């Protein structure tokens, strides 16, 4: 397996809030790798730094230490021009399908925009739109409508189609299914897995929901307060975690089976009091 993305000892600081306030470090030296065609699940609670890590890979925040390598080339703190070239390899699907699509643009414009930015011709881009819509299971006439006319699940399909438009090698999915209803969530996850099998795209799948992460990830990394506390295969991390925090996280998530949930609750309370 070839390593596609390698993050080594990555540090990110946010500037202090007030005048002359010291910056606060949100990532304290994080390392991870993603192979081509692989899904790495990144799980953690709010404030753990998982979204910041995703944004650093996307070039949306500045790093303050360590390195990010893509295909062996360092990509942290690239100039805007080189970063734009990288767009054809690294794409994103955000959590909120309501704000990640410009409400004033037609779906076909949203989908052709990344292609135009890569220097493709207008006709060429327009021709790709129908294929992309079909790829994510939206009707062909969806291109002539505004994103705001669609439901949450359909918008997220549009966002996935936009990410797929220029056939990237890595897609960062930041809580990509968290805002969706249960049934829609399961369908979008299946769609992502299916796309991965066909296109060999790799995912950095960021979520707070261990159940979702387990479903789509080959390997899982657990973040806690700016550090990765555990990494391993999806099976190991989500069934027999070694780190106490991961254990807590696993037991805290309620399950739908009432008998199983009662057992889990007792186990959690026992773990807490021990």
């Amino acid at each position: 397996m070839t390593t596609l993305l390698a993050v080594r000892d990555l540090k990110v600081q946010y500037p202090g809030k007030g005048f002359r306030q010291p910056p606060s470090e949100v990532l304290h030296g994080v390392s991870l790798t993603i192979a081509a065609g692989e899904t790495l699940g990144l799980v953690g609670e709010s404030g753990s730094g998982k979204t910041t890590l995703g944004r650093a890979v996307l070039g949306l925040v500045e790093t303050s230490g360590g390195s990010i390598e893509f295909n062996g080339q360092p990509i942290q703190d690239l100039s805007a021009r080189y970063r734009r070239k990288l767009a054809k390899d690294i794409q994103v699907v955000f959590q909120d399908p309501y704000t990640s699509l410009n409400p004033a643009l037609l779906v076909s414009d949203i989908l052709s925009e990344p292609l135009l930015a890569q220097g493709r011709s207008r006709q060429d881009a327009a021709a790709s739109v129908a294929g992309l819509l079909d790829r994510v299971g939206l009707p062909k006439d969806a291109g002539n409508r505004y994103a705001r006319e669609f439901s949450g699940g359909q918008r997220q399909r549009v966002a996935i189609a936009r990410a797929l438009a220029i056939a990237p090698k890595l897609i960062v999915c930041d809580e990509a299914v968290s805002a969706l209803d249960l049934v829609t969530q399961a369908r979008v996850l299946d769609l992502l897995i299916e796309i991965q099998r066909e296109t060999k795209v790799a995912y950095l799948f960021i979520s707070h929901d261990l159940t979702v992460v387990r479903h789509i990830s080959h390997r899982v990394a657990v973040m806690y307060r700016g550090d990765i506390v555990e990494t391993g295969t999806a099976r190991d991390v989500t069934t027999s975690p070694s780190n106490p925090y991961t254990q807590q996280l696993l037991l805290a998530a309620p399950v739908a089976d009432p008998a199983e949930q009662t057992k889990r609750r007792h186990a959690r309370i026992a773990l807490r009091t021990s």
Partner: protein
Amino acid sequence: MSVLIPDSVENIRRPNVFRRLLGNPMAVGSMVLIAAVIVLGLLAPVLSPHSPNFSSLDAVNAPVGTPGYLLGGDSSGRDIFARLLASVNTAMLSAITGVAVALLIGIPFGLISGYAKPRTDSVFSWVFNLLMTFPALVLLIVAFPITGGSYVVMMAIFGFLFSPSIFRLVRNLVVAVKRELYIDAARVSGLSTARILRRHILPAVRGPIVITASFLAGVAIAVQAGLAFLGLGTNDVPSFGSMTADAFANLYVYPIQFLWPTIMLAILSGGFVLIGNGLRDALEDSSLAPTKALRPSNPEARHATARAPHGPAQTSEGPSPLLRIRNLRVSYPTTGGQMKQVVNGISLDLNAGGVLGLIGESGSGKTQTAFAVLGLLTQEARVEADEFTLDGHDLLSGDAGDLKRLRTSLLAYVPQEPMSNLAPSFTVGAQLVEGIRATKGGTKREARQLALDLLRRVGIVDPARTYRSYPHEISGGMAQRVLIAGAIAAGPRLLIADEPTTALDVTVQAEILDLLRNLQTDLSMSVLLVTHNFGVVADLCDEVAVMRSGEIVEAGSYRNLYRHAEHVYTKQLIGAILDEDTYRTDPVATSAYPDHSEGSVGR
């Protein structure tokens, strides 16, 4: 996999801004008037027989209606009508120059400043703030020797001096839009900064710029007239200001000469301001306001239903449930004039001490049902039911004040977003005390003691400290504990919790669920839990009702329903739950594997 289109397409179209502008009589009137005035100005050479500067001794102070002098002559024997039309052109030219210069400077710098790094932003903002402190009118007067009285040059300076207002507007709008995720998505898509500014940011800030430009046009016309009235500016070009000044000298002898330029000035300058107002209303009014006629005029009509009259409901069958709902319907008026039903006749019973989960996906009507019980629906909602009783009291009839007291004494509510339900400018303690005294009365001291006890009761380690804290100083989980403390203060019989843990982290969620379970047992409350999460139901609820499109499709003991769901929809929902023992086992898809590999999501 054949991909279905599971979600219905919402087809809500709002009338566009221009349509809404046309619905505003004030704006339409102003636009028509201004358009008419502009046309008059453009047709000046055709309409007026004299050049505006041609003076004739015969026409000195000629009365209105003199042949060839429609509005008479002024003190120099010039045609007032001709001068009036020429002044319209001067005014419009002034407005266009002033606004154009302000926009040309303000918009680009505002876009750059809002979008660029903080350092660039501070420099630009500083420069424009400095510019803003210059007194525009005084500067224009001082600069008179330089401008040589040319209106175009003077208005260009005016535009320059007013560009900070455009700059600040654009910058602030851009700063707000910049944080939207679609801007990040555009950056990741590889769009250049110029393209992002043009395609994504400019359209979002366009509306407010148009409004401000309209106001600015009105101001520019007034300022130009003011300067000319003071005698600043060339005498060769007629303008409202110079006409007013001429007429002013004659005010006691021929007051009517004063009328024409002032009317025109008022129409133009006021008209632009009114159009600006109309535009602002049209842009801001994006709600789908229901037609007023639909709103029932008296409160009784809201509940006008054909149902058997009954007193305090006491049926023969066993102990009466705490909450009894039969055929509850909730509907709202739509813009089309019909009523749209969001809860379509549901029935449920909740016994004293029972915990009922109301589960469904977004838009299923679960929150509407809970809010109907709480009496929190908006005014235009129509609530109807065959039976709707709380502890034997009818919730649909009776005095509004009595109903409110009944609900306060029996019900408590825990919301989804704890933070937005605490007022940011008051301490936690002050808000608790206020709530306690409103429901239970008593002195401040007693209420404070009770509040501290309650905070301890909901598992807050240092109650005194939390009591003194402001909402922004406590975490989301802590805030939810505070709200629960407030909710149980009056010893409610029924606690209604609407997605109480959805906004919280899983580890915090588990603690809040523990707390709710303990409180429910200790205080023997009933709980109505609204949620979309089967795990939360499994943790807390004995009974469950599954909702879809405003109907309860299946209800019963959760243990039973989880194992033996009967309704297709319930089966579908439970089937969509991601299994606990399912994890991904198919190998990483590399090019070494053929397409559509055998791997699957297995158990």
